[in-house]
């Protein structure tokens, strides 16, 4: 629990490694929304036998890869305003219908980055006080998606744990996160209880314990 240990570099998963680990949990037929950052690394790691429909807030159901240079269409972007392509069988709807998909429980998973996640699943990821506030679709996504999976580093740049007892940053939603994938471990939040289900290869229980700001139980054989 000392400052010194928390700042010692340890070998966990890389950003790509976290994305790859999460991709292995996506099931065939899932409708998934990916936030910016690590989540955008996920599509390349989705197993070939798993078909996932990617949703974008601006109304795309069936997002394909980014458009190749010279093939951009200004009328076709993702929620980050990047020029994209569509998969065969994609559909496009207006923004109200897009969020009906989200709020109505038709989105299986939303994958988001986070500033902090509390042990009971509160999420803070939209606003750092003092900086420029913008919310986009984050609050709708966490309120509506059936599962909210967070991908993030176990600690922030200052070495402070991002899994905490109570979030100190403004909340995006209360008791919404169901899983957390970090460089060091995988956590599930079940009925308000934080459970560690998996250590990243080569990471020790003590290393995770020192870098987690909340209590959790170890449950290495979760059902499902």
């Amino acid at each position, binding site marked *: 629990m000392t400052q010194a240990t928390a700042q010692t570099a340890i070998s966990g998963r890389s950003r790509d490694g976290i994305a790859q680990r999460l991709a292995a949990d996506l099931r065939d037929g899932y409708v998934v929304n990916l936030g910016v950052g690590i989540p955008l690394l996920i599509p390349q790691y989705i197993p070939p036998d798993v078909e996932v429909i990617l949703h974008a807030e*601006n109304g*795309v159901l069936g997002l394909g890869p980014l458009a190749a240079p010279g093939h951009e269409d200004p009328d076709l972007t993702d929620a980050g305003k990047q020029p994209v392509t569509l998969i065969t069988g994609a559909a496009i709807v207006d*923004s109200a219908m897009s969020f009906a998909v989200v*709020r109505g429980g038709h989105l299986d998973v939303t994958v988001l980055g986070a500033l902090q996640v509390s042990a009971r699943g509160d999420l803070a990821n939209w606003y750092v006080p003092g900086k420029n506030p913008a919310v986009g*679709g984050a*609050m*709708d996504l966490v*309120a509506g998606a059936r599962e909210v999976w967070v991908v993030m580093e176990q600690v922030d740049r200052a070495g402070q744990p991002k899994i905490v007892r109570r979030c100190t940053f403004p909340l995006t*939603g209360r008791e919404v996160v169901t899983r957390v994938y970090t460089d060091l471990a995988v956590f599930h939040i079940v009925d308000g209880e934080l459970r560690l289900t998996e250590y990243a290869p080569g990471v020790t229980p003590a290393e995770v314990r020192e870098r987690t700001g909340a209590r959790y139980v170890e449950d290495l054989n979760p059902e499902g």
Partner: protein
Amino acid sequence: MIDKFRSDAAAAVGAIPSGATLAVGGFGSSGRPDTLLDALCDLDRRDLHVIVNNVGGDFTGIGRLLLERRIRRLTASFPVLPEFYDEYFAGRVELELIPQGTLAERLRAGGAGIPAFFTPSGAGTMLADGTFPLGYQADGAVADRMPERERREFGGREHILEYGIVADFALVKAYQGDRRGNLRFRLSARNFNPLAAMSGRHTFAEVEHLVGTGELGPDDIHLPGVFVDEVLLKSELSPRKPATAECSS
């Protein structure tokens, strides 16, 4: 005979007075009504309340109106433009920050005659609890906060009351339109456009192509002309940059 086509954008948007509330379609530059916004920029209209998902970073249209301090309040989910925040923190423009799905539904509801609705989005956050600063004073103190939302439980879960938006005017962009105002959008440029159009008491639609009445089949019309009052052609010259992008500061 119904003919909503107008050839002069400047004359058409001239009906918008200072102080008006405007709903504007688009998501970034995708589906943004650049010609209508350019025409509005050329008029000396001030004290506007603009409802739009986000403000592009290219200083055209709404960005230009902001830099020229002609907007009183911005209702948006993702303003992004750094210069906007300078104005916000300096107390020169208000920000009503709304979750994106709530914003879309508020526009739809307003146009559909639904005065308010309950949603789980934003419940338990500072966008619902009355703490988010709507505006600042020149000295940096908070002048006003967004009102606390009414709360109600459904199925054991907290929801908040959000109000439908009826705007004085709407500015939208479509791919095709006919003289009856029927619109067809293209790909993800649809986004907020049908919803902004619905929310407007008077709606201007800028189209890339004016097509003959009947060319758009009844099954191919994304938004019927009943929601549209005037149809204008998009100009090849839009969006225009402002003459001076440095006029803030």
